[in-house]
């Protein structure tokens, strides 16, 4: 009995898991589940992270109220409001030329700056240009002066900033020359031009449009030269309509004069002359042609017009091919405002502008033709402003209260339209897809169309596939169906090694070895392309003529061994014969000397009109072939050789030849696998980076010319990312490029994978 229980006990012990092992087992089970899921989540997290980086590009502007301040009781005397760079000291500009500041940060309260213009003149007109912060005043005696409404920061020992007004006033200059009263005057100054244009009223009640240019003495030390009167112009004759508004470009290069009937007169200030260059009607196609208002955008080439019904259009200067000069043409059309906008306020950092009318305010961005933000306020807006850093919005309402808003809109240039649509940038004759992310000047607009890059990627892929697909598929077919089994074991690893060649090596070989080699020998290459298939045909025919005895002496499946030396010899012969072919076929006559030159590089542009560069798509396609061929080959070969034996044997037994079996039985069965192989090849070529970076000129082109370069999405990232500021628009746009690549390859790969699964199921069914 005891014995029995002991043995029972022993059995239990034998089967009982030690506590330690049990714990460990349970721990490992959980650890693996959690760990495995985490690894998978981390890998998927890449997509999420990239998406999060891209998302802000598509957000509109965020506007939040910061504070409200009572600035004045008499709004009728207000000309404009403006704000310093830091948003601390708004200024109210009044009709008598006085400035009233309000300290928002410190305890200085209201700072009255008194009248800017004095010196014994009576002001008869006053106008404020917010783009260049110039206050322009005209007087009863026909003279004008301007003042720069600036700011000056001061830092104390603890680096705490106090902003002070900094107003500099010019002398008075005689505009009319005849002592007439000035009704309106505007002034603009750039590096080369300083121009004032105004309307003067003579003693008989006639209005004259007068203009005067100012000249500054050149001084060796900075800007200190003395300013004196230059040429005088009388524009009255040239304008046969009643004048509504005058706008001098901030750089003084031209003046727009809007007539009451809706016509706009453009005078260009060039070579010491002020001449009427263009007359146009911005709203000529509408029932009500009148112009509500006109003003310039940053950069002096674009002007924003508002129509009588609230329509909003942007006209920009661009080169008119027919007339050979720069003219205004409509470039943008915005959604109309609910009613005629009363105020227009341009941003000084980018192409944004603010339109206000009654209770409605709308922040718009010219480049992308988009409304960044709009809102109906409960108060009636009479003036507005965009902060200097594009980070503040300010509104002055009817009661004299200033509403300061925080503006957060880090990527105004972005948007689906900018990335994928045709955009007409300043200076372009027509809308186009352009990628040009950086430029030399401050008012440069980043041009962020992804279309040329996508075209570049597709172009590289196309030529790589044109070259690689036939070779890889034929090779796979031969290897799986006809090749001697002994050789098959060696061919596959060789191809796999080819797949592992680092792309930097291929890129280097393409750019520094193949491109210079092919540069002068394109005809040779064409001959090779032609000669190799011919040689194969000839070889096959000759082989067929040989007696059976000879043919059977070599086992089937070794044709390629026989063919290889022949191809090699053909290649060498064709290569050598290239220059001969060039002399016969590709001859260009030099129009000046009448000399005939045999050079393909000259012949191609002359014959097709397309360009020829040394690092071209042909080179890229060829080298990318090295990367793509093994990928396509191994997948296609796998799916071909996995076709169930029974199908092949059946076909052969019924008397079909090996080629008939391969083409009619094996190929159709494995076709999903072949398509999947091609798809994987395409995805590999799309994502290929180093070859494209090294072997093309990286110019964003939009053509499919085989003898020109391109810039692919992937290459673009490598080229531009190091210069992209963290979380800037370019940075996020490059992320968008990466996301595009990711999505494209992911979709293609998924399609390929699904096809392969489908194929696997089909094979299962056959078995």
């Amino acid at each position, binding site marked *: 009995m005891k014995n029995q229980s002991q043995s029972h006990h022993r059995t239990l012990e034998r089967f009982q898991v030690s506590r330690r092992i049990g714990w460990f087992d349970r721990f490992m089970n959980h650890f693996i589940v959690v760990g495995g899921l985490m690894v998978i989540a981390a890998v998927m997290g890449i997509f999420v992270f990239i998406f999060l980086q891209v998302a802000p590009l598509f957000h509109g502007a965020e506007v939040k109220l910061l504070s409200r301040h009572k600035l004045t009781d008499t709004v009728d005397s207000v000309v404009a409001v403006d704000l310093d760079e830091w948003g601390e000291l708004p200024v109210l500009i009044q009709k008598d030329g006085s400035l009233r500041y309000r300290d928002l940060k410190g305890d200085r309260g209201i700072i009255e700056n008194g009248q800017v213009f004095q010196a014994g003149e009576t002001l008869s007109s006053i106008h404020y240009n917010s783009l260049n912060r110039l206050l322009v005043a005209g007087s009863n005696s026909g003279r004008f002066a301007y003042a720069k409404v600036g700011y000056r920061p001061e830092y104390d020992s603890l680096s705490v900033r106090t902003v002070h007004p900094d107003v500099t006033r010019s002398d008075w200059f005689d505009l009319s020359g005849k002592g007439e009263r000035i009704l309106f005057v505007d002034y603009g100054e750039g590096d080369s031009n300083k121009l004032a244009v105004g309307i003067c009223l003579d003693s008989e009640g006639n209005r004259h449009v007068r203009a005067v240019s100012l000249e500054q003495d050149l001084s060796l030390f900075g800007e200190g030269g003395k300013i004196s009167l230059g040429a005088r112009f009388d524009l009255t004759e040239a304008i046969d309509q009643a004048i509504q508004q005058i706008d001098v470009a901030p750089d003084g290069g031209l003046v727009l004069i809007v007539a009451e009937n809706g016509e706009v007169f453009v005078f260009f200030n060039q070579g010491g002359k002020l001449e009427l260059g263009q007359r146009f009607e911005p709203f000529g196609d509408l029932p009500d042609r009148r112009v509500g208002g006109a003003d310039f955008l940053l950069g002096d080439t674009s002007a924003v017009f508002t129509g009588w019904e609230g329509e909003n259009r942007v006209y920009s200067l661009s080169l008119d091919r027919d007339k050979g000069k720069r003219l205004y043409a409509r470039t943008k059309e915005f959604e109309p405002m609910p009613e005629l906008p009363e105020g227009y306020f341009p941003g000084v950092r980018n192409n944004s502008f603010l339109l206000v009318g009654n209770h409605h305010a709308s922040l718009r961005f010219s480049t992308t033709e988009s409304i960044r933000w709009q809102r109906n306020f409960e108060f009636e807006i009479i003036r507005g402003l965009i902060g200097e850093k594009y980070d503040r919005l300010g509104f002055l309402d009817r009661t004299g209260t200033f509403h300061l808003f925080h503006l957060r809109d880090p990527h105004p240039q972005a948007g689906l339209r900018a990335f994928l649509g045709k955009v007409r940038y300043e200076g372009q004759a027509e809308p186009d897809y352009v990628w040009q992310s950086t430029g030399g000047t401050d008012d440069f607009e980043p041009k962020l169309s992804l279309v040329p890059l996508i075209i570049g990627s597709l172009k590289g892929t196309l030529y790589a596939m044109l070259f690689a697909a036939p070779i890889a598929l034929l090779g*796979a077919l*031969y290897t799986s169906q*006809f090749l001697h089994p002994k050789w098959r074991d060696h061919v596959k690893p060789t191809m796999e090694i080819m797949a592992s060649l680092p792309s930097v090596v291929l890129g280097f070989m393409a750019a520094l070895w193949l491109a210079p080699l092919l540069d002068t020998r394109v005809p040779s290459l064409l001959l090779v392309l032609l000669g190799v298939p011919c040689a194969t045909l000839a070889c096959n025919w000759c082989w067929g003529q040989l007696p059976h005895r000879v043919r059977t002496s070599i086992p089937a499946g070794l044709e390629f061994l026989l063919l290889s030396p022949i191809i090699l010899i053909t290649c060498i012969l064709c290569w050598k014969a290239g220059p001969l072919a060039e002399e016969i076929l590709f001859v260009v006559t030099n129009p000046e000397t009448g000399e005939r030159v045999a050079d393909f590089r000259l012949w191609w542009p002359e014959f097709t009109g397309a360009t020829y560069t040394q690092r071209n798509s042909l080179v890229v396609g060829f080298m990318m072939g090295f990367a793509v061929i093994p990928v396509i080959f191994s997948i296609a070969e796998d799916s071909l050789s996995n076709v169930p034996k029974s199908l092949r044997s059946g076909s*052969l037994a019924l008397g079909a030849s090996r080629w008939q079996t391969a083409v009619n039985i094996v190929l159709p069965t494995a076709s999903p696998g072949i398509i999947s192989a091609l798809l994987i090849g395409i995805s590999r070529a799309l994502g290929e980076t180093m070859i494209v970076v090294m072997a093309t000129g990286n110019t964003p082109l939009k053509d499919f010319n085989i003898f020109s370069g391109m810039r692919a999405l992937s290459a673009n990232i490598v080229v531009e990312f190091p210069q992209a500021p963290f979380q800037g628009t370019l940075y996020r746009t*490059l992320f968008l490029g990466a996301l595009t690549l990711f999505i494209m390859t992911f979709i293609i790969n998924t399609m390929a994978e699904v096809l392969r699964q489908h194929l696997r199921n089909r094979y299962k069914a056959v078995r």
Partner: protein
Amino acid sequence: MKAIRKNSQVSGKGEIGVWFSSLGLSLGLLMIVALLGVIAYNGLSVFWPKRVVQVEFDPQSAPDLGSRSAVAGIITSQKVKSQESPEEWRLFVGNKDQYGISYSYFDRDSLLKVTQPEDLLVLERTAYGKAIGYPEHISGPSGELVSAEHPEFAERLGSLVRECQDRGKEIRKLETREIGAIHEALENLRLQQLRLERQSELSSKDREALEKIEKERARYESLFTTLATQARSLRDLQTSHKLQYRLASGEEIDLPIGEIHRFFYPNQIGFWGRAAVFCNHIKEFLLSEPREANTEGGVFPAIFGTFVMTLFMCVIVTPFGVLAAIYLCEYAKDGVFVRVVRIAINNLAGVPSIVFGVFGLGFFVYLVGGTLDELFFSLRLPTPTFGTGGILWASLTLALMTVPVVIVAAEEALTSVSPGLRESSMACGASKWQTIQRIVLPASAPGVLTGMILAMARGAGEVAPLMLLGVVKIAPSLPLDNQFPFLHLDRKFMHLGFHIYDLGFQSPDSEAALPMVFATTLLLIVLVVVLNLAAILIRNRLRRKYQIAGF
């Protein structure tokens, strides 16, 4: 019977198709053989010392060389551009300090005389690349001369060069290791001081510490001066002996022996002598540091950087990859989720590497690195420590990039372990984890290894993401060295692949750099091909093993 077989074999319908399809294979194989051949030929010929010729010509035919009428050089190419123009020779003329160019072009017709003088000497210098000329004499510090005609001239020169090289090593040790360590210590002191000074109030203890820091600093600085004087006196010795040589074009030049790296008489040495120089060159290429903006010397730092990065990547990727594979294979219940995950992982292996690079820069460098800097290295800001590309982020990103490869390979290996093995293990009473640990994992180890090697090969050859992640042209120090904490994860590093890109495309004299690029390319290819071959061999062995081991 025999006749029928013959018939079916050779004259079936569509033989032409068969021939055409064999064209695909032939072309594919020819292409790869040709490419590898070109790289191997160009890569190896860099190291082979070639004969040097002296050419005499009309000064007007070679305006690059001024009014010189003779020059010695190595013929690097002879080609006919078109049928009318004569053969064009490209000569590597060296002596960049004198000529300002590395290569000169001549029409064969314009050359008056081509000779191969026996006594031409090739000098590999530490600056300005190679010099080619006739040795005249060696002058010692006290004016004693050994003429080139002296029978023991070559031996004397050799022993002097060796002596100088040993001294050079000593100088380098002094300057990089010891003085470098002092700099490191001084920087640490500076940071300590900064940390103390940032506190609003200093306790007496802090003041003491500050004084101590001052003392330490003074000590290090005096140490620095002694070491620096020592190094300077050694440097002076390097220039005490001088070699005078005469160029083929007539200039006479005095070269301190310390600047000579190696010398040989290219037209005197026979095949074995050449082979010795060849091996020496290869040794130098593999083991020494680059000189002359990477166009001369070796690629050791690049090899080392590639190695450390790949290894580090491997250390990260393998456990995670295997973990995920074990989960997918042994734990996850087959369903829609697992199927989707499997497809997604398969796809991720095909996502372009540059996408991972962008992710690595945005996530690891800017987000994680930036945060780490703010938390732990705020004293060094604005100089980033981890907030910039470095070997850690590069390895992590590549690990993320290759993790799908490892998961796929490991899962394949795990599923191919026969269920019988598992069941018998369970039947013997092993727990699930014990089964995995003792039975499944060992049986699938070769498969996992294959995945690992494939990942390594991919990681070693990848360049595009690294360009965003801290790979540099010249790294001042290796990521692994004898300074605490030995493995410097924040350091930038060199990489063979990037070396190729940088030398070939960003180098000021890309023509002179080309041989070096070919050599580096060959090395990289050999590395990657060896890794791949290893993977293939292991896989083949594995397949055979399973064929036998199947129940």
